[in-house]
């Protein structure tokens, strides 16, 4: 049986603990994610976002909590409901809005759309649509860390490297899920797999994807699987932080099942008729942002100030993005092939724990 964790907040001050600033940061990134996606939806309705639009409304704690646990030198493959992870790594709202609108200044300069991006300058490989291909890419990064002798904490002044990737409940049905899980298990790689169980894959409910919760598979691949409240950013942080610790200590992979709910349609056009009203209501009560706000209010934090700050950042981002030109059609066939190799770079890692490292 997989372990169930209810995810108590960690003690402040302890390694892996959260300071008050950290806890506020978790809220801030969730608010940023939600705010950006909501604002983008407006832009979409105004016809400023081409193609279709996907968001992660209701799932903010999953990407924010997990990515918050990752070090600057860690590497990430971020999926389509995980905008928070990009924000934590340091991708600015303006570049994200530019991305959505297909502008030259967007993360991919208009080559790819909506959430199909990733900034290699902050340690991320942009996802492909084919789910969950990125699980193998992340597994390969972890494999390389081991080959390079940079996987383990002993390796380089305490800074072991870890890979992390997210994927959905539906994505667990595809072969690449298996090849990645098995590979990581056989080679005992430093990687964290975050299974984002948001109850649906497009319209398909869980029971049509699997007979048994896939968190139970982890043991059969030789590593731990645990179920975490995916609407609790601090629980997500704690579980990921522990998994990362084990990984860089040579303990191998962890599968974290983040139980959450996709509160919006699969994409902008989806009216979600297939979701029972009661299910939505039940989950609305568990909103991850409200949960974090309640915590912080109790600790005396001025939550409204955080809201204001986030609002300003978003509006500034939108304005900046709206100034970005569309890409030049004359560049449409440039850069298919690289002249020189580049390599993923370290990203931002706002967690206080990384600043106190030796």
């Amino acid at each position: 049986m997989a372990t169930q964790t209810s995810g108590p907040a960690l003690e402040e001050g302890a390694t892996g603990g959260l300071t008050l600033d950290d806890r506020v940061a978790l809220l801030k990134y969730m608010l940023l994610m939600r705010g950006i996606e909501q604002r983008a939806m407006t832009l979409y309705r105004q016809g400023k976002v081409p193609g279709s639009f996907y968001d992660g409304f209701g799932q903010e704690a999953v990407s924010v909590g997990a990515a918050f646990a990752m070090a600057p030198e860690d590497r990430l493959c971020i999926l389509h409901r995980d905008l928070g992870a990009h924000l934590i790594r340091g991708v600015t709202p303006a570049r994200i809005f530019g991305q959505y609108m297909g502008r030259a200044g967007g993360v991919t300069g208009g080559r790819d759309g909506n959430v199909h991006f990733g900034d290699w300058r902050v340690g991320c490989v942009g996802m492909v649509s084919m789910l969950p291909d990125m699980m193998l890419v992340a597994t390969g990064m972890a494999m390389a860390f081991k080959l390079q002798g940079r996987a383990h904490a002993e390796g380089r002044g305490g800074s072991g490297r870890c890979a992390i990737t997210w994927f959905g409940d539906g994505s667990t049905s595809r072969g690449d899920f298996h090849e990645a899980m098995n590979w990581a298990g056989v080679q005992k790689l430093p990687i964290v797999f975050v299974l984002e169980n948001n109850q649906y894959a497009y319209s398909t409910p869980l029971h049509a994807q699997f007979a048994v919760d896939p968190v139970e598979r982890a043991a059969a691949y030789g590593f731990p699987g645990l179920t975490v409240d995916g609407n609790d950013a601090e629980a997500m942080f704690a579980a990921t932080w522990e998994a990362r610790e084990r990984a860089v200590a040579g303990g191998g992979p962890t599968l974290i099942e983040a139980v959450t709910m996709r509160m919006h349609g699969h994409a902008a056009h989806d009216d979600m008729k297939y979701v029972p009203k009661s299910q939505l209501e039940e989950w609305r009560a568990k909103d991850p942002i409200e949960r974090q706000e309640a915590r912080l209010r109790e600790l005396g934090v001025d939550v409204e100030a955080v809201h204001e700050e986030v609002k300003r950042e978003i509006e500034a981002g939108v304005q900046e993005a709206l100034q970005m030109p569309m890409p030049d059609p004359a560049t449409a066939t440039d850069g298919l092939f690289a002249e020189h190799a580049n390599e993923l770079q370290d990203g931002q890692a706002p967690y206080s724990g990384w600043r106190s490292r030796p």
Partner: protein
Amino acid sequence: MSVMTYLQAISDGLRQEMRADERVFLMGEDIGVFGGAFKVTDGFIEEFGSGRVMDTPLAESGIIGTAVGASVVGMRPVCEMQFADFISCGFDQLVNVAGKTRYRMGLAVPITVRLPSGGGFSGGPFHSQNPEAWFMHAPGLKVVAPSTAEDAKGLLIGAIRDPNPVLYFEHKHLYRRIKGEVADGTFTTPFTARVAREGEDLCVMAYGAMVHTALEATEDLDGASVRVLDLRSLVPLDEAAILDSVQRCSKVVIVDEANATCAAGAQVAALIAEKGFEDLDGPVVRVATPDVPIPFSPPLEQAVLPSVDRVREACRELLEY
């Protein structure tokens, strides 16, 4: 006869054939309760039940592989890829199991795979591809690609009735843009080319959405009489019709929405250069998407996909040759 969109014609073809043949059933992601990402199977689960309109796990290799298994024990599966792009994930089952079993073992594999393909609406690199040429280079698979509502229905029913694996490319950009008269009930369209417009000065050869681009580009071309050949079937390729058009027109422009290298159009051009050489009066001109992923942003996407203007320009130049 009823007037239908291209999309409605596909739905109608499926529905009629399911009514006519109880061995036919549908498999795909979100095709049942949701009615499909493009709503092609909207309402089907109510009429035919969840056994015949099966919401599968997210697993394209699984969809193709299990369809093969079902087909050899008497069923007639019709698989939907949510987007043609995802066929890459079922590629192996398709080319190695579905494609080669009849030749190797004498066992027919009557499956149909529906592939919503093509770009033009900011779908980006993974929702805009036209991968048909991969399968032209994989012996044992038939490949069809309708451009009109009528053919959409007739080729689909023909594909389902064909005792071989048939890849049916339905162009997403035609779904709601194209309308036409479509016969009621069931009928099949042969896997041959169709003359979309008669003409004798030059022939534009295309399939799928590009047939419409070709028609528009040559509608009024300084008075030239331009033939448009809708290939309609890529495997088998209607070599006789192609060579006949070369003989009639002597000048040929081939349009592909797919990436240029090794595309269907390359095969057509190679065929003409070998078997129609003596009839040629000018180079075999190609208009295709350059070899890059299909970019998302409209100015970039428009820069790479063959446009009415590019096709018109190519025809003009060749006419002046």
